[in-house]
């Protein structure tokens, strides 16, 4: 028995080792290196003066730094909530819809996944064109259906810009949630559904008593994926509102804040590599803590359900 286990472990090790090397060289070391830089200060790309936790103290005590940091974090939370709402709730109903048997449901399923295959930058630029106040098609459509007076400069108004950007991201990754949920719904034993129907259950009963409890673990996975994606999101901001998160930093997220502070020159909003690495480390902590919390929460839910 012991001999067999040993052999098994050795076998497993061989599988894990190559991935581990690649992971270490390309992920772990850069992350640790970046954390190291957050303790340094200096000009150029490689800061050389050790300053201890000074960068962190500066980030949270000097208004010029913390105002931007809290602003980006606040925006990011709003962004996450909007995206979660659209992708989770609407995605769920869409999945229920496409798993019903009707003509064309296969086609609908494929169609809903199509935007996910596009590049985020492409989606960003397309949305920007559609919403262009001068020649964009969206305003023209609103005018044509008589809603002309409600038109605002969608991406130029701090009240609407973040919402518009969130919708663009949700639109793109909507199909991903649909895919996850519909595969969950497909996994439900058809005989259970049939039994419910015979007992006179309508669609709402089915959703609340059968579908929702069985896809609850998937809600967790989708939420965690959205969380990671949203708190490291950069591309869509870069494409739609520039790396300053215009107008007036109202769409500045953690990703764009990090890019700007670490890589731009001081004149364009850079804070130097040391402070940039500090922002990156904070992002890492936020994502790690967030994912940990969400995992614990959904695991507890799962346990409650299986009891």
């Amino acid at each position, binding site marked *: 028995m012991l001999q067999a286990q040993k052999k098994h472990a*050795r076998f497993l*090790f*061989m599988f894990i*080792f*190559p991935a581990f*090397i690649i992971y270490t*060289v390309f992920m772990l070391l850069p992350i640790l290196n970046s954390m190291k830089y957050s303790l340094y200060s200096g*000009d*150029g*790309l*490689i800061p050389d003066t050790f300053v201890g936790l000074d960068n962190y103290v500066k980030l949270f005590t000097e208004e*010029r*730094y913390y105002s931007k940091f809290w602003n980006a974090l606040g925006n990011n939370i709003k962004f996450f909530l909007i995206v979660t709402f659209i992708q989770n709730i609407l995605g769920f109903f869409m999945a229920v819809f496409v798993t019903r048997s009707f003509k064309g449901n296969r086609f609908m399923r494929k169609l809903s996944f199509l935007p996910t295959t596009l590049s985020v930058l492409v989606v960003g630029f397309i949305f*920007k064109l559609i*919403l*262009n*106040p*001068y*020649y964009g098609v969206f*305003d023209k459509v609103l005018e044509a259906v008589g809603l002309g007076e409600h*038109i*605002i*400069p*969608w*991406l*130029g*108004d*701090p009240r609407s810009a973040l919402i518009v950007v969130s919708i663009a991201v949700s639109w793109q990754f909507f199909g991903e949630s649909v895919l996850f949920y519909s595969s969950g719904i497909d996994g439900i034993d058809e005989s259970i559904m049939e039994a419910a129907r015979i007992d006179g259950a309508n669609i709402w009963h089915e959703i609340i008593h059968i579908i929702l409890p069985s896809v609850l673990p998937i809600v967790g996975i989708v939420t965690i994926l959205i969380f990671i994606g949203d708190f490291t999101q950069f591309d869509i901001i870069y494409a739609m509102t*520039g*790396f*300053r998160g*215009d*107008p*007036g*930093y109202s769409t500045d997220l953690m990703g764009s804040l990090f890019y700007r502070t670490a*890589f*731009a*020159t*001081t*004149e*364009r*909003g*850079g*804070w130097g590599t040391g402070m940039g690495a500090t922002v990156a480390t904070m992002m890492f902590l936020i994502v790690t803590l967030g994912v940990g919390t969400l995992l614990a929460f959904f695991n507890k839910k799962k346990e409650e359900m299986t009891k």
Partner: protein
Amino acid sequence: MELVKKSILTMLVLLLAGTMAFASGQQGSSTGDGDKVKLVFTSWRTEDIERMNRINAEFTKENPNIVIDFQPVKDTEYDAQLKQSLAAGVGADIIFLRSYDSGYQIYKTDSLMELNDLLPELKDFPSAAVAAWATPEMTSYAIPAAGVVHGVYYRKSIFEKYNLDVPATWDEFMAVCETLKAGGETVFAQGTKDNWMLYEVMYSGLGANFYGGEEARQALMNKEVRFTDDNFVLAMEKMKELQPYFPERFEGIDYVTMQEIFGTGNAAMFMGGSWEIGIFEDLGGLEDVGYFAPPLAKKGDTLQYCFHVDAGIGFNKNTKHPEELKTYMKWLASSEYAQLYMNELPGFFSYTPGSYTLNNDLAKQMQSYVAESVPTVRTVWEKLSAGSPSGNELVGEAIQKMYANELTPEEACKFVNDQLSWYY
């Protein structure tokens, strides 16, 4: 166990081979083919590849053993890329440098040649331009290569339709705007989505005549006056006066859209920079485009002309071909290069002493104002943008907020002054 050892060894060998191949690939890029020496030239102007290649071909004609490889990087990525490549020891030989602090930061990484002894002719260049790429002790690290001006472009056909003359004063300017608006034209192609335009072109260009140009800029930098002083607020109020003439939903119009609106003849005027001549040329109908300098506060004033120091050319200290690089450096500082450059890139003005003929009408018009003006640069570019948050960002943000009716002109100035506290 033997198998494990073997597989580890194979992995390591593969990894090593991979890194070595990668490293040699990097080095190969800077050595030329045959006995020719290749020098790599980098800049943030990706749109200039063909033009720079034509200019450099002239150099290679005279120096057949040296080939210049122009490899620009997208503007927004340029600074990060440059820093990275210099730190990794694979930086280009010839490097476009931004003026003042950005360029100085690169110099401080100890990767640029000092030019005072190498290029004695620099002392004949305009001293203000030389200072934009020199240490406080006046050690030069770049040749001042290109300056840009800011003013107002207009469509000649639209002006003719309303019998309008080119305005010289602000009052005349406002009258022109009023006439155009009454006629139902889109007066300006201006939008406020990209706020750098608001500061770099509008406030620095058109505001200079109101805040007092170069003298006021120097006083601001020397901490003798503040941004909340009356003259700076006045310039801000003048910017606000333009708002009624912006197109509908201007808050959502970005820089490229502005250029398209004006370049396709859909607006009468566009406040822009001289670097845009090429863009309007590409959009067609350049003969219909005219230009006038920022309107004066009142008749008889001297024009405060924002002639901004845009690009300098520095040289990599760690080049593999120092002798060839020096030959090219001499040529870049010659009037021959300056003439070629201005022919190829109208709207960029060389600082190299000499007499030149400009072949582009718009560029000629832009330059015609120089003789009777006081040159200045963008308001808070020097020193006031060397810390965080930079003056450059703050003024842009303040004007953007002012046009969004979040701040009054006075509050906008206070917004800038308050956040510049790191400087005082």
